[in-house]
């Protein structure tokens, strides 16, 4: 028989990863927004993501809905444990989501909505980083419920993962901007890329060195044999990819930074996941314990196997339609 919980853990991880790769760049644009020189540049930056942002955000709904559906127990524990970060993230996404339309509708208050876009993008990203960090550091559970305090999610480690994700999304945003723009704005994108790459490398390094010391179990995953042989390629590959990003920035190869950053973040997830398995709520509830019954998982799997390829196909097609550089005064319908 198929190990349905494991398949669903894989599919959900894939969904979250796609979310990071896609919404990461449009959140990143929000982080870079205040540093863009002029209104025209902001308009162009906004127009590069306007046709795709809410498709990107749908992957986050899939993450929340999928966790609810496939691992209801984990959802029921994680949401109260991360109450404040999730509420803040959701409100922040409201702040930035409405700005996409509002800023064009009210030129007198364009600055206000730009600020709303920046604030929302930053808070959402930072909170997602905190959520990630809390997952890695562990969640206290008693019976079938969260048993920790209201502020357990706020630790130096989670602040660090929050900062790391901000740097990572800014790098994704820079890479996207380099890909989608030209002229002075593209040059600007490379300057952003340089700074955010340095930030990303630094914070990823700190988090990577810190993680094994969070718990003896994670330490054992990394530094005992034979585990070490399996996990050692992850940091090595990360360094190679970081080198590739640095090369792409120096040589200004538009098509390098964005995809390479996706790979880099993917490696980071694998690195964090190494310490997590077989748990879905770290060191408390395993994937198997939290899983919905096979009848639920199988019913969804049929839908997912039919729909996901279709979704990827038409999402890809939509990106294809809007391919190429976006210029001033073009790309909007407003």
């Amino acid at each position: 028989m198929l190990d349905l919980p494991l398949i669903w853990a894989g599919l959900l991880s894939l969904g979250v990863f796609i979310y990071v790769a896609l919404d990461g760049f449009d959140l990143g644009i929000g982080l870079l927004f205040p540093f863009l020189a002029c209104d025209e540049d902001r308009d162009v930056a906004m127009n590069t993501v306007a046709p795709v942002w809410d498709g990107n955000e749908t992957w986050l709904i899939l993450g929340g809905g999928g966790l609810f559906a496939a691992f209801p127990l984990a959802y029921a524990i994680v949401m109260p444990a991360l109450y404040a970060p999730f509420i803040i993230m959701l409100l922040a996404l409201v702040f930035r989501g409405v700005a996409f339309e509002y800023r064009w509708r009210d030129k007198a208050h364009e600055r206000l909505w730009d600020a709303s876009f920046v604030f929302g993008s930053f808070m959402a990203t930072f909170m997602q980083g905190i959520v990630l960090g809390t997952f890695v550091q562990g969640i206290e559970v008693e019976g079938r419920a969260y048993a920790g305090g209201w502020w357990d999610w706020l630790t130096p480690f989670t602040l660090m993962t929050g900062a790391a994700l901000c740097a990572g999304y800014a790098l994704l945003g820079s890479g996207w901007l380099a890909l989608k723009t030209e002229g002075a704005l593209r040059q600007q994108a490379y300057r952003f890329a340089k700074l955010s790459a340095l930030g990303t490398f630094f914070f990823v390094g700190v988090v990577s060195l810190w993680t094994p010391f969070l718990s003896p179990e994670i330490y054992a995953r990394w530094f005992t044999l034979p585990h070490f042989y399996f996990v050692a390629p992850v940091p090595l590959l990360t360094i190679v990819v970081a080198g590739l990003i640095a090369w792409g920035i120096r040589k200004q190869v538009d098509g390098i930074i964005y995809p390479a950053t996706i790979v880099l973040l993917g490696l980071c997830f694998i690195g964090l996941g190494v310490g997590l398995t077989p748990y879905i709520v770290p060191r408390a509830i395993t994937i198997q314990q939290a899983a919905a019954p096979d009848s639920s998982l199988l019913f969804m799997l049929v839908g997912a196997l039919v729909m996901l390829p279709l979704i990827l196909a038409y999402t890809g097609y939509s990106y294809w339609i809007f391919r190429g550089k976006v210029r001033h005064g073009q790309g909007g319908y407003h």
Partner: protein
Amino acid sequence: MLEFFDAAMLARIQFAFTVSFHIIFPAFSIGLASYLFVLEGLWLKTNNPVYLNLYKYWLKIFAMAFGMGVVSGLVMSYQFGTNWSVFSDKAGPVIGPLLAYEVLTAFFLEAGFLGIMLFGMERVGKRLHFFATAMVAVGTLLSATWILSVNSWMQTPVGHAMNEQGQFVPADWLAIIFNPSFPYRLLHMTLASYLTVSFVVGAVGAWHLLHDKFNAEARKMFSMAMWMATFVAPLQIFAGDLHGLNTLEHQPIKVAAMEGHWHRQTGAPFLLFAWPDEAAEENRFEIGIPYASALVLTHDIKGETPGLTDVSAADRPPVGMVFWSFRIMLLIGTLMAAVGVYSAWRRWRGTLYEGRWFQRVALWMGPSGFVAVLAGWVVTEVGRQPFTVYGLLRTSESLAPVDAPAVAASLVAFIVVYFALFGAGTYYILRMMRAVPDGEGPERGTPQRAAGTTPLASMASDARKGGL
């Protein structure tokens, strides 16, 4: 008073607040997506530019409403867990997969084609653009289908079993999806959404007719809206009656609350006014139409109808809220049908675009659909109390292990942010509706810059806005 606001009550208020705000946008975008589909289809068929102008006009409004729907809906997919985690744990195996199907079949479809719909007119052919519009419209309807299936299962749960952890587990998926109240709720809500949009479109048309009765776009949209009112409003009353009978069969106590009937009786009156007193288990200031309730509910003036005292007080919903929301919905439904019938008469007489007072009525009826939708949802959701899964899982047993201060703080945050941001959005939508629909774009008639800007500056600002 203070102990009334415990964590459970605060969490309920929070859910009610966020979901009520949210439903306004889908109720609007479900109907509007279908309207846009019709407009673009008619444009492709007839090549009449009036349809294209109307399409572009409503498309911008759709984009605003859709964006607000997305972000307020995202909140909902996490609210189950933050405040109702025990419910999520127990009901997750049944309703989770249905929500997952909603995301997979509907949300991605809408979001994936929305970009092409909004920004792609210059980049893809007419047919493909029309296909994108169709996919967005289909997506909104699929979304309604799945979420109403979930809601209906919570009202009329079937097709499940219980496991040893106390979770509802699926036994028969078809029975779960097509649970007894689902077809009625789906029909009723879809028609409600279409009517809501019809009256909004009708009001915008009426507003512009009041200013210029020869405006071709205003005439067209007013006429289309009134056709809908004529045919769909009576149909909706019929669908609502079917839905009510279904509720009588499966949730008789909810019907007793809607009717304000405390005792099982034959030949029950329909109460036009009453002040239900829960402590005394009776109504004050009752005014009713004799036998009317029995006739509607049992199709027999001597028929027997349920009363609230059929069950113990602990199993009853809050009566006053259900009773009064139901009356608000009925009143609006009746007014809508009256507008529809009267407009048909005017159309037949050839005076549909004349009568200024009728246009004023249509204008004031603009927001009525939203009020009716909210009132209807209050009836069905408050009427489900004190259960989350009707008869099986109590609301009080569904709550997350959250503290009142945490829920209170987040509730205040939601209220402040929603009123500020969605309030601004509603203002912008109204401003867009004020613009004359003549194909010149909504900027005309609504100066975007303060007086004193040079023509050059405003041209530059137009250039920044780009295409279409």
